[in-house]
């Protein structure tokens, strides 16, 4: 027994599993209270109070919501592709969860599941796989509105993925590493948002589009597409899409904090690192909700024009500027 435990492979796997389980349950809790926060903030933005009946201040509302989802009837449209209809909601959650495996939550190596040396690429890979959930969900429902919603979303996500990937290259040039821990360590004096303001703006704009949040929530534009790609989904399958969307929001905000806002860097002893991370993450999450309840939805052609004609050239310009500045700085 002791021999098995002293094997470094076994130790690594067990530790990784423990961290994965912790993150999974933490995320479920964070998502349910993020939805509560969204409803509360939305209420106050619209001069209402938001949920306030279930428990003190409505704090048990998320539990009630989840229970309600569980007791809803499962419905599947006739002639839907059954297997893909079941797989799509799972695909919505998995890429978001995998992203958390490379996010450094604190300075200690124990606070990151695996510090792989291509962490940033893993994030981009997972965000590019997120399209499948929506496309397949829309297609397998055998419903015109769902199909159109899925198609819109895939076109949108492919377009904005490019600008998002390019906007991270400025950070890469400055940090000289693809590992997210090294990128955070490189920001111990100055956060990269100081040197990369343009990249930060592009990243955040594309983040709204990648997560299908307003003002880029065209895939589920209610007025024209009913509920978009999840029109035919009900009960916990709908819940999984919801969960996936909010997990994606958290994941993308965590990456934004890591790349641009110094990650766990902050004043005070290193033990406070995780606190700083959570604080910055909360500010970004609040901005996501704020924007959703403040801005109207874009039209489809406006969205495509913004992505291809504004954000993509701006991201390319940012790479050139950063490269020139770094070259000039090192050859002075």
């Amino acid at each position, binding site marked *: 027994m002791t021999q098995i435990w002293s094997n470094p492979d076994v130790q690594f796997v067990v530790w990784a599993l423990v961290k994965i389980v912790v993150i999974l349950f933490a995320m479920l809790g964070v998502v349910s209270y993020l939805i509560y926060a969204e409803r509360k903030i939305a209420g106050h933005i619209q001069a209402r109070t938001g949920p306030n009946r279930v428990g003190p201040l409505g704090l048990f509302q998320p539990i009630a919501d989840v229970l309600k989802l569980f007791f809803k009837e499962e419905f599947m449209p006739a002639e839907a592709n059954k297997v893909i209809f079941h797989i799509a909601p799972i695909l919505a959650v998995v890429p978001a969860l995998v992203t958390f495996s490379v996010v450094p939550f604190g300075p200690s190596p124990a606070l990151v599941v695996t510090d792989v040396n291509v962490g940033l690429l893993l994030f981009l890979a997972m965000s*590019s796989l997120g399209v499948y959930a929506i496309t*397949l969900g829309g297609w397998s429902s055998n419903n015109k509105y769902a199909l159109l919603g899925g198609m819109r979303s895939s076109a949108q996500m492919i377009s904005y993925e490019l600008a998002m990937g390019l906007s991270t290259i400025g950070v890469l040039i400055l940090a000289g590493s693809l590992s997210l821990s090294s990128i955070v360590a490189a920001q111990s004096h100055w956060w990269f948002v100081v040197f990369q303001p343009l990249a930060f703006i592009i990243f955040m704009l594309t983040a709204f589009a990648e997560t299908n949040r307003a003002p880029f929530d065209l895939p589920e534009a209610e007025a024209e597409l009913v509920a978009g790609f999840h029109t035919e989904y009900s009960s916990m399958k709908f819940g999984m899409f919801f969960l996936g969307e909010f997990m994606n929001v958290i994941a993308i905000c965590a990456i934004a904090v890591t790349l641009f806002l110094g990650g766990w860097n902050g004043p005070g002893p290193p033990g406070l690192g995780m606190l700083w991370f959570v604080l910055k993450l909360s500010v970004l999450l609040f901005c996501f909700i704020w924007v959703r309840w403040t801005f109207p939805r874009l039209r489809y052609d406006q969205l495509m024009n913004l992505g291809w004609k504004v954000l993509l050239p701006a991201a390319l310009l940012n790479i050139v500027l950063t490269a020139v500045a770094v070259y000039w700085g090192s050859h002075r």
Partner: protein
Amino acid sequence: MTEALFIGFAAMLVASSLLVILHRNPVASALFLVLAFCSLAGIYLLFHAEFIGMVQIIVYAGAIMVLFLFVIMYLNLQRDEEGGVHIALRRGLGWVAGTVVLAEGVFMLARRWAPGPLTPEVPGEAAGNTQQLGMLLFSRYLFPFEVTSLVLLVAIIGVVVIAKGRSTAGSGTRPAPGEDG
């Protein structure tokens, strides 16, 4: 542990590749191809080719296959149930080509031939081989790298020209949406 993971990924790769060609539903075939790309990325990761592995997922699984799915869904392709001489001919050619490739593989494996110089050690494992790859691309392989990018640029321009040409020349056959066409 690496061997066990390799066998797992390789088995998944072989199984999903077979299902790509054997499954009758085109959407399922495309999805199995995505699975095949992901297993291949896993194998790359096991060989410490992290950059290639991730780019495999970003480019092939995340971008190209999504466009494949797009086309399949827009055309609403049904189950592959056509028959006739054309299909038989295509199938026959496929079997011949597959047999030739398989025989080639077996022959090369039996003689222990490799398609390039074998380097037993992974260079620069600690820093990750992304840096090594970048260095090689921009020094030793600079010319092929630039030629590739030029080819891609030509392809982009070609697409733009084709798309433009259709909207102006096609105005005779199809009513233009605006007054300028």
